[in-house]
């Protein structure tokens, strides 16, 4: 782990200092998880849908090169300009060159996790180009100079009073405003002005259809459409894994996406962009940035099936209690912890350990990614390659020694129970990270083994 970046445990510790806020964060996300359950439960064929979605994605990954070629061909025939970017830098350069060609110095952008991954805003700002994020949550974190803490709910960590303060400072709302209705209205007025004055709009892509060369963008706010339909230049950026074979497959994915994300039956807008409007220029940037490498890792390939719904975050007991920023990567939560080490094993060595491996993420995933199993596999890779924190290496060696000998295991168990009972401060101290923000459990009188023996005498 590099010294510059704080690790997940360190960042979680900061988040955990405000206990009331942690509880609130935890409960808010669990409420969204419950809405997801209710919505999924109302579809009798939900599990069949998940299975189909998973199979379609498996198929796409196995023939991705061919599908990308047909997508490109069909998109070009539709009048869209197609670009390919090997990495984040090339992606940023392509976007910049398009803007430069048109002499555009201000752009409006709807939600795109890919551009977060590539740090596009920072890149363009260095080149003197201003970017305004138009999704309300993203605009809020942008004003706060923070990254999004959740891929679907970018400012889920913020209280309405804090948003009121930001809007007072930047948008001139009266001090002390915290009514979501009034704050949203202020953002609407401010962003409407932005939409009406920008010549270029960038959007993300939820699904790109090989068969037709069109791409689909889903929003609730209508911000992607407001930007794209008013601008002279529309740039859509997508990871190469967003391809689906045919239009009819949208039926499967659009049924799953919003229900998994927020419990809504569908997003307010599912917009299908097939051709530029008359007089408009439309670009698509297809980005690799490590995806072809992940494709080659058999154990982690399935992470490329992700449709970015955020369900794994909402359900994750670690995410809910440590907050999205503790993951120090554009995509937080369980799926982010699988994607990040692919790009930089050293910098993100801590992330696969930010999990209880309870498996809840895999159970809610609409495309059936084996998320918790991949987290477990990353841990092995990271330890083997020597990137694990030294405290983890030592404890793992001790654990291996203890678990490989029944005698040592029994003695260790007894000793542990004795310590917890008689000298609790030996574990209830600042050197034990588990004890932070937690109480140690009550001590059982006997081990399971001892109890079992007694019961079966």
């Amino acid at each position, binding site marked *: 782990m590099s010294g510059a970046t704080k690790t997940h445990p360190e960042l979680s510790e900061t988040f955990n200092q405000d206990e009331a806020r942690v509880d609130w964060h935890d409960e808010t996300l669990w409420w969204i998880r419950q809405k997801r359950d209710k919505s999924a439960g109302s*579809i009798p064929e939900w599990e069949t849908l998940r299975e*189909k979605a998973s199979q379609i994605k498996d198929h796409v990954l196995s023939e991705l*090169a061919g599908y990308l070629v047909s997508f490109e061909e069909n998109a070009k025939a539709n009048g869209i300009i197609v670009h390919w970017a090997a990495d984040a830098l090339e992606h940023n350069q392509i976007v910049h060159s398009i803007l430069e060609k048109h002499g555009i110095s201000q752009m409006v952008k709807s939600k795109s996790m890919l551009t977060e991954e590539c740090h596009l805003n920072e890149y363009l700002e260095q080149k003197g180009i201003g970017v305004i994020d138009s999704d*309300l949550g993203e605009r809020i974190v942008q004003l706060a100079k923070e990254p999004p803490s959740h891929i679907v709910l970018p400012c889920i960590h913020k209280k*309405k009073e804090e948003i009121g303060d930001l809007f007072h400072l930047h948008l001139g709302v009266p001090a002390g405003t915290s009514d*979501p209705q009034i704050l949203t209205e202020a953002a609407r007025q401010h962003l409407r002005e932005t939409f009406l004055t920008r010549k270029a709009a960038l959007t993300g892509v939820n699904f790109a259809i090989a068969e037709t060369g069109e791409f689909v963008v889903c929003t609730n706010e209508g911000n992607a459409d407001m930007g794209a339909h008013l601008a002279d230049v529309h740039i859509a950026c997508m990871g190469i894994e967003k391809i689906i074979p045919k239009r009819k497959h949208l039926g499967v994915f659009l049924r799953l996406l919003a229900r998994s994300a927020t419990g809504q039956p569908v997003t307010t807008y*599912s*917009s299908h962009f097939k051709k530029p409007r008359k007089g408009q220029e439309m670009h698509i940037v297809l980005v690799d940035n490590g995806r072809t490498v992940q494709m080659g890792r058999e154990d982690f390939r399935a992470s490329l099936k992700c449709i970015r719904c955020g369900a794994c975050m909402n359900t994750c007991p670690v995410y809910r209690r440590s907050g999205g920023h503790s993951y120090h990567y554009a995509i937080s939560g369980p799926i982010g912890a699988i994607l990040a080490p692919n790009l930089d094993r050293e910098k993100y060595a801590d992330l696969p350990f930010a999990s209880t491996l309870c498996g809840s993420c895999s159970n809610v995933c609409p495309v059936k990614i084996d998320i918790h199993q991949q987290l477990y596999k990353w841990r092995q890779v990271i330890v083997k390659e020597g990137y694990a924190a030294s405290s983890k290496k030592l404890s793992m060696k001790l654990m291996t020694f203890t678990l490989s000998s029944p005698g040592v295991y029994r003695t260790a168990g007894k000793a542990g129970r004795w310590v917890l009972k008689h000298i609790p401060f030996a574990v209830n101290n600042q050197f034990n990270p588990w004890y932070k923000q937690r109480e140690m459990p009550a001590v059982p009188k006997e081990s399971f083994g001892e109890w079992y023996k007694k019961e079966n005498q």
Partner: protein
Amino acid sequence: MSRDQILAALRQNQPEPVPLPLAIPTDREEVVDLVTKFKTVAEGIGSTIYLPDNLQEIQTTITSIFSKEKRILTTVPELVSPDIPLFQLNEDPHTYADVDVAIFNSSLGVAENSALWLTEDQMGIRVLPFITQHIVILIKISGLVADMHTAYQKIGTADYGFGTFIAGPSKTADIEQSLVLGAHGPRSMTIFMYV
């Protein structure tokens, strides 16, 4: 350059071909009354539904609900009246920034999520369904289908420049998960379902 590198890397790293599943699930256990289902879902996400008997009733309802609004326009010629002028195309989308009410005709509605399908030719201009303060959509009951699979069967391989499913007024819950209608697009959605 990057194109060929990416494709070459994929061809090398892709797994053995996995077949595409043939059937899309249509084994629904739930038999739905499409109108009731559509109405319930639409009202649940903040839309207002009317079941008028004739076109005249649609006209008078629109005129009375939106009596205070200044710029109303319809892309549905049958609804034109002294109060509801017909949409006129101006290729600069910015000229529609002050539209208060825009009326459209959809030919496809999805009962499971109350989404209505509009294509560019039904919109007049792409920006209109988004930039208007209030949106009104007409849908014939015969245009309703049960779910998204059936919807895409109906869309088939139709050619369009742009098409969108619209389900309700634009909305956000980004501030402490409090639902607010009217994020950037329409503040309200009114749907007329007729025979």
